[in-house]
């Protein structure tokens, strides 16, 4: 949940308070940058998209409604959309070797359990890591590259039915772990 202090920060940002904005930036910039870097695979582009995401926050903070859900996923949803749009604009995809090697992507895991929130994302992080590499690959391409199942089948040169089966199996497994967590 979005804590009361954060809700106040967002309200202040909506009123044009620059200090509140920078405080939110300090809290969440690493999450936004982590996501955009994962999607774009290019530090320069990720930096630009992170900047665009926070500028959108600056101009649209009023649109955030706390009763509809926590702030961070809302912000990351914006970041994902901006990053995927940028990916399409650039007409490029990160090299498959990047996608296939999770250690290249997930190598900066902080020390465990410093906050409840970190504990939550850590559960999913390990859940994704626990997937079979073939399943993880389709999740990566679908979710972090914005590809449809047909596009994934084409990229991986495999039957569409296989992609569907792997993606469904991966999502079901993640849901089980997520619900248990």
């Amino acid at each position, binding site marked *: 949940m979005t804590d009361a202090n954060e809700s106040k920060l967002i309200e202040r940002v909506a009123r*044009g308070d*620059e200090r509140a*904005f*920078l405080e939110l*930036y*300090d809290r969440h*910039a*690493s*999450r*936004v*940058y*982590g*996501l955009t*870097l*994962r999607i774009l695979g290019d*530090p320069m582009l990720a*930096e630009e998209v*992170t*900047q665009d995401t*926070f*500028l959108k926050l*600056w*101009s649209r903070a*009023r649109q955030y409604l706390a009763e509809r*859900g926590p702030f*961070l*996923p809302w912000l*990351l*949803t914006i970041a*994902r959309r901006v990053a995927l749009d940028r990916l399409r604009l650039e007409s490029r995809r990160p090299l498959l070797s990047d996608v296939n090697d999770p250690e290249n*992507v*997930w*190598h*900066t*895991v*902080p020390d465990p359990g410093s906050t409840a*929130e970190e504990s*939550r*994302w850590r559960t*999913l*992080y390990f*859940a*994704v890591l626990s997937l079979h590499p073939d399943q993880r690959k389709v*999740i990566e391409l*679908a*979710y972090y590259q*914005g*590809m*449809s*199942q*047909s596009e*994934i089948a084409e990229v991986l040169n495999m039957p569409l039915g296989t992609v*569907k089966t792997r*993606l*469904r199996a991966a*999502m*079901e497994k*993640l*849901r089980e772990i*997520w619900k248990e967590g």
Partner: protein
Amino acid sequence: MTRDEHAPFLENIPAYAIGALDADETAALASHLEGCASCRTELAEYRALGESLLTALPPRQPPAALRKRLQSRLLGAQKTKRLTFNWSFSQLATGIALVVLLAMSFYSITQMRSLQLEQARLNRQIRTGQTVMSMLSYPATERLAINSESVVGSLLLDRERNIVALIVWNMPQLDETKTYQIWLINPQDERVSAGIFRPEDDRVYTTYIVFPEQSVTDFVGVGVTIEPAGGSDQPTGERVFKVDF
């Protein structure tokens, strides 16, 4: 719908939740979801999972320069934001209500002021009428005729109570730059101003009461001239009429 017919839609929900379903299947599933509560529940769970996947990536610290760059971008955006009226509906409604209230208040004040002016004008007319009536009924009042080329009327002179009343018919209206001015004339043929007046819009006659500062017996007559608005120290304009006591 049978279980077999339902199954293909159910299978597609995970991909749909993360936006990976192809366009043709997306349209079919969206249509199915409209009438299937259990599939909507299933979708809600996968969507929540998808949202959580956003937070499942480890954080990465962006370059410090990005914060500074954003700060400088904000300065530009701040100026624009200050110039932009970004009002919510309730603020807008309150603003409109205030404007309407202010307009109504201004209209009410204007109306009240207009009524007050009209009331003062009527009171003045009543007082003037009463004074004229009392002078006419007083035995010592002298009645002198006003008879010039342009106007006719009467001058009532009450030497005991030191009052002069003018009742003049058909006085032409003057434009805003001019006024009628009354002069008391002494034996040395000097003029002393006794007031300025304008004809009433709604009457064919004009009544004006003069209460001289000196005794009216010091004077030998009354004259009226047309003067610039506000009056003059001495007569400068056209004479309208003159009455000798």
